[in-house]
């Protein structure tokens, strides 16, 4: 299986503070990968560096064999990457329906595996809310809309940052079920989350970031073997 994404030696700074100290990892096509770590360790920055939102000072991002390190964010997204940011990125002046319609497009190969109707089928809760504004939704509904909107761009790589943070347990479960469905549809996915138990079972590969460095990168089996170290690194 070929790599869909290769990240080499990312060094990223926010102003004077050095956040990433040479982050490197690969993701195979179709794989679901978790990125774990305590708050402020550089998980979100890693995602933002991959997407060009926080451009790295050095290092490279190779996507589908092509160096995209210097591309503007929107051009990377056009190559079938979708991003659900922490905070969900709702538009206060667009309805739920408009959120979905404005984002919908075929992927770069001209295929549309996800349609408006399919997204609503996966998130039936949104059907009753179609005419509400994005910011009028509950946290869980906003998350569903953010994921649905991302799916409508028909991505090959989906990046989810804290998709279940601050949600009620039942809603959380619903979100995980959808992520499982996305995984089954063959989309490569990067998930930043804190729930090791679910991630362990859902993801093939796991990356642990501590102070801007990858300190663990392995499959679920290896993760279990190093459970003590991982839990220690995640404990506050």
């Amino acid at each position, binding site marked *: 299986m070929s790599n869909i994404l290769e990240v080499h030696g990312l060094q990223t700074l926010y102003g004077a503070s050095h956040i990433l100290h040479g982050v490197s990892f690969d993701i195979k096509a179709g794989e679901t990968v978790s990125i774990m770590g305590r708050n402020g360790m550089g998980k979100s920055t890693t995602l933002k560096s991959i997407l060009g939102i926080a451009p790295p000072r050095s290092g490279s991002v190779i996507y589908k064999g092509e160096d995209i390190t210097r591309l503007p*964010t*929107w*051009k990377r997204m*056009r190559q079938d990457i979708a991003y659900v940011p922490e905070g969900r990125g709702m538009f*206060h002046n667009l309805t739920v329906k408009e959120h979905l319609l404005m984002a919908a497009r075929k992927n770069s190969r001209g295929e549309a595996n996800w349609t408006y109707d399919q997204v609503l089928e996966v998130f039936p809760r949104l059907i009753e809310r179609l005419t509400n504004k994005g910011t009028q939704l509950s946290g869980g509904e906003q998350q569903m809309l953010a994921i649905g909107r991302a799916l409508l761009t028909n991505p090959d790589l989906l990046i989810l940052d804290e998709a279940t943070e601050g949600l009620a347990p039942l809603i959380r479960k619903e979100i995980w079920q959808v992520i499982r469905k996305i995984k089954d549809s063959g989309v490569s996915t990067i998930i930043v989350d804190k729930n090791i138990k679910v991630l362990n079972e859902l993801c093939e590969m796991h990356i642990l970031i501590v102070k801007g460095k990858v300190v663990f990168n392995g499959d679920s089996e290896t993760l279990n073997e190093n459970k003590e170290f991982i839990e220690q690194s995640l404990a506050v």
Partner: protein
Amino acid sequence: MDTSLFLVQLLNGVQYGLLLFLIASGLTLVFGVMGILNLAHGSMYMIGAYLAYYFTTLTGSFFLAFIISGSIALLIGIVIERFLIIHLYKRDHLDQVLLTVGLIFIFNSIQSFVWGNDPLGVEVPALLSGSIKLTDIIEYPIYRLFISALCIVVAVSMYLTINKTKLGMMIRAGESDRAMVENLGVDISKLFTIVFAIGVFLASLAGIVSAPIVSLVPGMGEHVLISCFVVVVIGGLGSIKGAFVAALIVGIVDTYSSVLLPQISSMSIYLLMALILLVKPQGLFKN
């Protein structure tokens, strides 16, 4: 004031209001979506009027001049955004003021250099000249009705574009969270060029259609800019719906006050603005 004068003034007020909307909508759209306050917006109105004069004289046809001037205005908008405004997005408001005030000086110099400082006029096109009988005793110039109709068509098209099309949804989304729009794979810089060019086009369009009913004089852009600011502030910064309602109110108040209370007419719209801001400090339709 008798009924017929009252009605004619109402039509004048509505027509002036619709024209103000045409200009103010561009100003508020650019501010709302791009966060750019274009002080040279009035200059675009002036340039539109002078271009209309130039090409009407050159071609002998106002309608041809209309099309040529409108196209040039779009081009001017694209060039200004691509080469100048593009440097402002990551800078503060003071830099916007400096650049756009500089543009006012440049456009005024161009106007003075190319067309001179004497007042100029454009004739009402033959097809739209003359008056129409509204009642037995009231006549109204056809050309002014044409301006109102055109403004209404533009207002409706803008409403439909912004509310019903994908481009409009993207524009509104850009107003709300431009980084997220980019995250969805939209080329925000192209979107900004389009929005800015539309803004310039709307102001110039107002200048073009006004050319046959106003006299073309230096400084006409600044005068209209100030009225536009009143409209935009009353309507709520960035709100197109607000600009529409405010422009009609300002147009009607300005027209009636100059007939009924000529002593205070020059300050009437500012009084109106002050009163509205006392009740609604954010303007009528601020989100």
